[in-house]
C-alpha cells in the first residue's frame, strides 16, 4: 500500500518563508568612462595603464578608503574566489592589462577598472534592499566624478562601450532562488512575464550563463530615458512580486505535492551525504533543493544561511583556497563530495 503523506503535518511544520530566503542579494552597477580615453576593448596597454593611474589618483584624492589594486597583483585562486562571490566578472580577468579592483568592504562596494567600461562601480546589499545598494554605488560615483572627467552627453547620458548600457549606465539586479516555481512548472510563464515588462532574467553567473540551482538574476533592460531611482524602485518592486509568487509556489508545493517535495529533499540530502564525486553544477542542483528544504524548515539543524555558505565554499576557487593547494578537476570533485558529506553529516530530514 502506498503511503499518503500527512499533508497537515507537512503544513504544520512548515516555517514561514521570509523574503530573504528567496531573494538572496542585490546589486546596483554603474558603468562609467573617461571622456578623453578609448574604451578598454580598443585601448592599448598604455591607454589602460593611464586610465588605471587616473582612477587610482582620484580614489586617493577623495580619501575614499579604497585602494585600487592591479588584477595582475592577485593570484589566480584569489581572483577566482572574487569571481565566485560575484564581486568581479570573467570579463575583467580576460582584460588583465590595466585591469584593477578596488574594494570598500565596510560599505559593500567593489569597483572594477578597465573591464568592458573604464569603471564598473558595484554596490551590494542583502535581500531586495536595492535602495541601499544604489546609494552605496552612487556615493562612490559622486566622489569620483569630482576628480575624473566622465564621458557624458545631455542626450545619451553616460557614454558606455556598449550602447545597451548608455544613459544611466545602471544595472540593478536581484538574485533570487526560484526552485518552487520550477518544480510546479510555472517558472517559464513568470520569466516570459518579466521579459514582457522589459526585465532581463539570467542565470547565476550573469550574461550568457545557465540558471544552475534555479538561482536567477532579475535586472533592468532599459538604462536610458528613466531615472536611476525609478529603475531601482521598479526592479525591486517587480522582484518583490516574483518573491511573492515563489513564496506561494512553496506553500502550494507543501500542500499539494508533499510527496514530490519530500522525495526531492530526501534524494538531495542522500546524494550530498554519500556521493564520492560531485561537480560544481551537480552539487549546486542538490544544494538548491536543500536550500528550499531549509527555508521550509524541513531539516534539523540547517539554516538557509548554512547552505548559502556551502554554495560559495564548494566552488573551485574557495575549495582550493581551503585546501591551500591547486587541484585537478576530478580531484576537486572528490574533495567537494567529501567536504559536503562532512558538512551535512549531522543533518536529518524531519518527520
Amino acid at each position, binding site marked *: 500500500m502506498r503511503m499518503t503523506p500527512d499533508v497537515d503535518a507537512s503544513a504544520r511544520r512548515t516555517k514561514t518563508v521570509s523574503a530573504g530566503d528567496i531573494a538572496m542579494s542585490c546589486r546596483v552597477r554603474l558603468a562609467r568612462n573617461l571622456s578623453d580615453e578609448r574604451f578598454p576593448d580598443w585601448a592599448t596597454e598604455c591607454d589602460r595603464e593611464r586610465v588605471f593611474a587616473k582612477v587610482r589618483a582620484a580614489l586617493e584624492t577623495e580619501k575614499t578608503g579604497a585602494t585600487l589594486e592591479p588584477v595582475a597583483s592577485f593570484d589566480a585562486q584569489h581572483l577566482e574566489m572574487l569571481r565566485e562571490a560575484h564581486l568581479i566578472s570573467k570579463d575583467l580577468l580576460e582584460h588583465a592589462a590595466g585591469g584593477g579592483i578596488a574594494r570598500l568592504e565596510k560599505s559593500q562596494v567593489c569597483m572594477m577598472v578597465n573591464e568592458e567600461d573604464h569603471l564598473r562601480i558595484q554596490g551590494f546589499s542583502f535581500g531586495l534592499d536595492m535602495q541601499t545598494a544604489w546609494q552605496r554605488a552612487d556615493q562612490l560615483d559622486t566622489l569620483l566624478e569630482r576628480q575624473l572627467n566622465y564621458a557624458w552627453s545631455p542626450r545619451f547620458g553616460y557614454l558606455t562601450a556598449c550602447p545597451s548600457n548608455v544613459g544611466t549606465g545602471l544595472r540593478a539586479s536581484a538574485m533570487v532562488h526560484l526552485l518552487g516555481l520550477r518544480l510546479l512548472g510555472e517558472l517559464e510563464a513568470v520569466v516570459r512575464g518579466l521579459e514582457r515588462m522589459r526585465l532581463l532574467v539570467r542565470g547565476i553567473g550573469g550574461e550568457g550563463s545557465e540558471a544552475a540551482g534555479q538561482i536567477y538574476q532579475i535586472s533592468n533592460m532599459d538604462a*536610458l530615458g528613466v531615472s536611476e531611482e525609478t529603475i531601482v524602485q521598479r526592479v525591486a518592486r517587480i522582484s518583490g512580486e516574483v518573491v511573492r509568487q515563489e513564496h506561494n509556489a512553496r506553500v502550494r508545493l507543501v500542500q499539494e505535492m508533499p510527496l514530490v517535495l519530500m522525495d526531492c529533499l530526501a534524494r538531495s540530502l542522500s546524494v550530498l551525504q554519500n556521493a564520492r564525486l560531485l561537480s560544481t553544477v551537480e552539487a549546486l542542483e542538490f544544494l538548491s533543493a536543500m536550500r528550499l528544504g531549509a527555508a521550509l524548515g524541513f531539516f534539523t539543524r540547517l539554516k538557509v544561511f548554512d547552505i548559502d555558505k556551502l554554495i560559495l565554499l564548494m566552488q573551485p576557487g574557495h575549495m582550493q583556497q581551503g585546501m591551500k593547494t591547486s587541484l585537478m578537476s576530478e580531484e576537486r570533485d572528490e574533495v567537494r563530495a567529501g567536504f559536503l558529506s562532512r558538512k551535512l553529516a549531522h543533518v536529518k530530514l524531519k518527520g
Partner: protein
Amino acid sequence: MKCEMCHQVEAETVVHKTIEGEILELFVCQECARRESRRDVPHPPLPHDNGEDGVSAVPLMGMILDAAFEIVGKSINREETACPVCGISRGEYRKRSRLGCPACYEAFSKDLEAAISDLHRATQHTGKTPEKAKAAWQRQQLLNALDDAVKGQRYEEAIILRDQLGKLGGDESAKGRLAP
C-alpha cells in the same frame, strides 16, 4: 545586435550588398536575409510584362525597393567613415559590438539612434547629471559654435559666444579663437 535592416529582431546572419560599387556587410535577421536573397534572383517575366513599356507590377515594385535601398545604402556609406578621434570604422565596431571611444556616439550617430531606440525604447537621458561633465560638454559646444562663427565671419555672434564661454570660466582656450 539588432538586424540592421528592420531594426526589430536580433541579427542572426550576414549578407553582402553591393552599393555604388562598394561591398557592404550587413548583420541581419533571417527574414531580411531571405528577402535580400529573393531580391538577388532575377524575376521571371510575367505574362503581362512585355518588357517594352516597362509599366508592370514587378519592375515597379523593384524600382521602389531599389530606391529605398539606395537611400539606406547612402546612409550606410556615410557611416562607413571612421570615428575622427579613435579611428574605429563602423564595420569594426559592429563586429565587436563595442564602440571605440566616447566620440563614436557622435561619429556613428545615425546608426546609433536606431540601435539605442531599439535597445532602450528611449533616446533622451533623464537621469543623473555630473556637474563637471555637463560643464565640459557645454564648453565644447560653445567652442564648436565659436569656431563655426569665426569661420563664417559672423563676428557679432562670435563675440556673444566668447562672452558665454568667459562666464563658464576655467579655460583660456576661447581667447585665441577670436582676436579683438
